[in-house]
């Protein structure tokens, strides 16, 4: 599911089955050195979350990405988002990011950190296989949380 009108309608009707929210976290870096890196990391993350959506459409809701800069106190924002999503009725909330600073910034949240792979120059079929490989890293993390309760 995506955070769009039609899917949210389904979510409201099927809350017992759609219980997981995934929030992509993307850093916006405007410096000349960091710009390209941050853009391609965002590209990678968007492709990856869309792929996760395809595989787990009936259980996860992919939220619009949370974008921030390094000068923001990002932890406060994310805690507000976390509370809001719990209020909405999600039992599991995951954050996916390529920004390594999150692993230490918010240890109590389920942050899935994946090193970014530049997809920009890749062929469609290569992209597909790279993303499938990455998905294989994500699935165990999701299913271990799901089977906790």
């Amino acid at each position, binding site marked *: 599911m995506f955070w769009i009108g039609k899917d949210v309608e*389904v979510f409201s009707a*099927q809350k017992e*089955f*759609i219980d997981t929210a995934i929030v992509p976290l993307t850093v916006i870096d405007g410096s000349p050195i960091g710009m390209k890196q941050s853009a391609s990391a965002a590209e990678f993350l968007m492709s990856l979350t869309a792929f996760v959506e*395809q*595989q*787990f*459409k*009936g*259980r996860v809701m992919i939220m619009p990405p949370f974008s921030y800069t390094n000068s923001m106190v990002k932890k406060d924002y994310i805690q507000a988002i976390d509370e809001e999503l719990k209020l909405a009725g999600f039992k599991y909330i995951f954050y996916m990011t390529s920004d390594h600073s999150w692993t230490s910034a918010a240890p109590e949240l389920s942050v899935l950190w994946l090193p970014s792979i530049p997809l920009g120059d890749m062929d*469609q*079929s290569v992209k*597909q296989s790279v993303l499938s490989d990455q998905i294989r890293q994500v*699935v165990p993390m999701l*299913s271990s949380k799901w089977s906790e309760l």
Partner: protein
Amino acid sequence: MSNNRVTRRQFLNYTLTGVGGFMAAGMLMPMVRFAVDPVLQKKEGGDFVLTKQKVSELTKTPVKVDFTFEQVDAWYKSDVTSTAWVYKEGDKVIALSPVCKHLGCTVNWEGDPAHKNQFFCPCHGGRYEKNGENIKGTPPLGPLDEFEVKEKDGLLMIGKTRPNTLV
């Protein structure tokens, strides 16, 4: 000179009718075109998509076959890669849609080691038999959809989905 000479009045009548007719046609044509437009429109998604899978290499075990088609979402065009689970039943090629009939996750062949020879949906543990029939007691309420299939030069072509015809 012929006997029936064209009078000035007749000449004017002919030319005016002619020119008027052209003008009327010029206005009517686009209107008619708009009215019949839905009939002339090309059907999208009705075409078969060629895959890289050789039909001769298919076996009784379902394999994943990827195929790509163009999808238009408002003004945004994108190539969408979709998959099908394809196997042979005798000489017949069967292609099943991997979309779970419960809430639309992607099912995998033998995705759960505990249940061999079944399709498994990782989201809520839905299971299907090899022919796509949903197993009672698991969340899905209907069988997996089937793709129309064709063969071209030994390669598999995948068409539209249709309700399962095997169950």
